[in-house]
């Protein structure tokens, strides 16, 4: 079997929405169980109190990367069928920075704000409202910013293609980055994290 299933008509629009719903609920559930429904815990990573978010995200990245890599190498999965988001380097960098600022200020990223809102936290609901208002404003002014939005296109490019290094070496490099990151995170939590007492 190959991914993705939806495009090849293995199931239709209705079923795909049901599947998206189930995956979304699962995602939200695990975010909540990891404590990501709490804005304090999420913001704590920026003060090096608690780097759980960093560790969880990096774990997810290398688990997915190693899994996809080996499944493709042994031929169980066709990587060329997996959709790659096209890169627009300048607008995406600015978008990333905006998201980062919002994350520090508000204490949530979009996904975790939903989790927080449905678990009844008022700051999560306010944050979610902000997202909706932001989407609306963006939608309304899109004609004005669409030139910038589509600027500096680089196509569907991967790091491996960009730097012309083999995929295997990139996999190894990212794994080493993750292990180094985990060690640094533990060290930072011990060394710097005690200054602020978590409520």
């Amino acid at each position: 079997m190959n991914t993705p299933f939806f495009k090849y008509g293995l199931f239709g629009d209705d079923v795909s929405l049901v599947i998206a719903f189930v995956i979304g609920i699962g995602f939200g559930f695990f975010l909540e169980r990891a404590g990501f429904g709490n804005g304090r815990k999420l913001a704590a990573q920026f003060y090096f109190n608690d780097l759980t978010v960093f560790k969880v995200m990096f774990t997810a990245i290398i688990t997915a990367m190693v899994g996809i890599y080996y499944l493709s190498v042994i031929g169980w999965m066709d990587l060329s069928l997996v959709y790659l988001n096209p890169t627009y380097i300048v607008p995406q960098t600015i978008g990333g920075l905006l998201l980062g600022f919002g994350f520090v200020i508000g204490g949530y990223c979009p996904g975790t704000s939903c989790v927080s809102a449905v678990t009844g936290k008022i700051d999560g609901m306010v944050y979610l409202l902000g997202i909706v208002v932001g989407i609306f404003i963006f939608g309304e002014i899109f004609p004005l910013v669409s030139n910038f939005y589509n600027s500096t296109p680089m196509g569907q490019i991967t790091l491996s293609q960009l730097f012309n290094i083999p995929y295997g070496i990139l996999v190894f490099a990212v794994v080493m980055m993750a292990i180094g990151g985990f060690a640094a995170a533990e060290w930072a939590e011990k060394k710097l994290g005690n200054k602020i007492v978590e409520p």
Partner: protein
Amino acid sequence: MKNFFPKLSLNKKLALLAFILGLIAIFAGNPYRGSSVTLDTKELSLIVDKTVDHVSAEELADWIIQGKSDFKLLDLRTEKEFNEYHIPSAELVPLAELNQYPLLRNEKIVLYSEGGIHSAQAWMLLRANGYKAVYMLFGGLEEWADKILFPKLAQNATPEQTTAFEKMKEVSKFFGGSPQVGGATEEVSSKKPMPKLEMPTGGSAPTAGKKKKKEGC
């Protein structure tokens, strides 16, 4: 050394596992498949047999009207024919240039030609090349013209047929076609004027005098 591994914490065990997998990855090669392909003939014949490799003219018209953009429509005819008429949103790709044409393997691709032969050949080429979501317009452009641009209603049509025809009329008008009612026509001509290329705008039907029916009823 014997007790080395069990003594590690779970985190360190997982980190060690990741390290080993990363190390092997250096030598494991490219996850993307090269140019060699394997053709699952049984799978292909099953697909052909079940006719899931087809998109009917009505379906395609529906997609275009709905403004779906999750598929690429490729016109395999010559440039001259393409310039005369093509289905809205189609891209011209002569069969010989299909291999060089930038297509993604995860894209839904719909092929059409005048009849069905060229699109069937192109379908095979693309399938063999690892494109999974390739479809042919059933009956090609001829069927598109019959069903969408110039749908016909027989004089002795049943009420169901009439209702279906009323629906098709709207679709046909969207594509600038001209639905036809009634059976007999004085002249039998195989050439119908194709609609103008500016469509779909809604209301630009060709002049009524030129309408000809292909078959008698």
